[in-house]
C-alpha cells in the first residue's frame, strides 16, 4: 500500500523506478528523493520507469509534472517508460502525452536521452 523509489543511473541519466501506489501521501517521498539526486548536479536527464506502479492519481501527475519542469529548465530531457494502461490513461486525460515522451521500455527511454545501454 506504499511506494518504493529505486534510484540508479546510466552516465548522465538519472533512472528512477517507482513501485507501489503514488498518491498525495507518497508523492512527497518521490519529490524529495528525486530532487536530492538532481541537486547533486551530475545528471542532465531523468527517466521514470513506472512498470510496477499499480496506482496513481492526480497527485502523481503533479509531482511528475513538477520534475519535468525542473529537468527541462536545466536543459535536460525527461522520459517516461513502461507505463501501465490505467496510469497511462491519466497522462492522456491531462494532456501530458503531448508534452513529454513515453517509451515502451528503459532501453528506448535511455536511447532518447542519448545513452546507448
Amino acid at each position, binding site marked *: 500500500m506504499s511506494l518504493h523509489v529505486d534510484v540508479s543511473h546510466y552516465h548522465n541519466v538519472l533512472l528512477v523506478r517507482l513501485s507501489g501506489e503514488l498518491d498525495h*501521501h507518497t508523492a512527497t517521498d518521490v519529490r524529495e528523493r528525486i530532487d536530492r539526486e538532481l541537486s547533486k548536479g551530475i545528471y542532465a536527464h531523468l527517466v521514470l520507469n513506472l512498470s510496477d506502479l499499480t496506482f496513481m492519481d*492526480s497527485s502523481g501527475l*503533479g509531482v511528475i509534472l*513538477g520534475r519535468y519542469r525542473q529537468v527541462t529548465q536545466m536543459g535536460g530531457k525527461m522520459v517516461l517508460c513502461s507505463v501501465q494502461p490505467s496510469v497511462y490513461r491519466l497522462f492522456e486525460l*491531462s494532456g501530458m502525452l503531448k508534452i513529454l515522451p513515453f517509451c515502451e521500455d528503459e532501453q528506448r527511454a535511455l536511447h532518447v536521452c542519448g545513452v546507448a545501454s
Partner: protein
Amino acid sequence: MSVHNNFMELKFSSQSENESFARVAVASFISQLDPTVDELTDIKTVVSEAVTNAVIHGYEERPDGIITIRTEIRGSQVSIVVEDEGIGISNVEEARQPLYTSKPQMERSGMGFTIMENFMDQVEILSSEGKGTQVRLVKDLKTHRQTIGN
C-alpha cells in the same frame, strides 16, 4: 428477485495516511458487485481525488479534520459522497475547470475534478465557504453480479 441494496459510512481524520485506506475500504465494499478491474480502478482513483482534496484544500493539511465517505449500492449503481467540514469552495465553476488549482506552489495538477468527471457518470459538488464541501459521485457498473435481495 429484488434489487441488492447495501450501504456503509466511513469517518476518519484528515491525515494523508488515510488516503490509501479510504480507497481500499470503498473498493472492498464495492467488490460485492463483482466490478471489472477497470471499474474498480476508476472508483479507487476518484475516492483518492476527493479525499486528497479534503485533506489538502478543505482542511489545509490540518490532521484533526473529519472526512466522511458514504457509499450506497442500489442494484448496479454505486453512489459515493465524500464530505469535509473545511474551508469550502468559493467558486465551484472555476474549481471544476481542467488544470485549475488554487495551490500551484504545491505541485497540484488541477486535474482532480476532471478525473472525477471522466471516471464517473455523475459528479455533483455542493460547497459553502467556511462550512465545507460535499462531492457526490455516481457510477453505474456495467458488469455486475446478479443478486438476490434481502
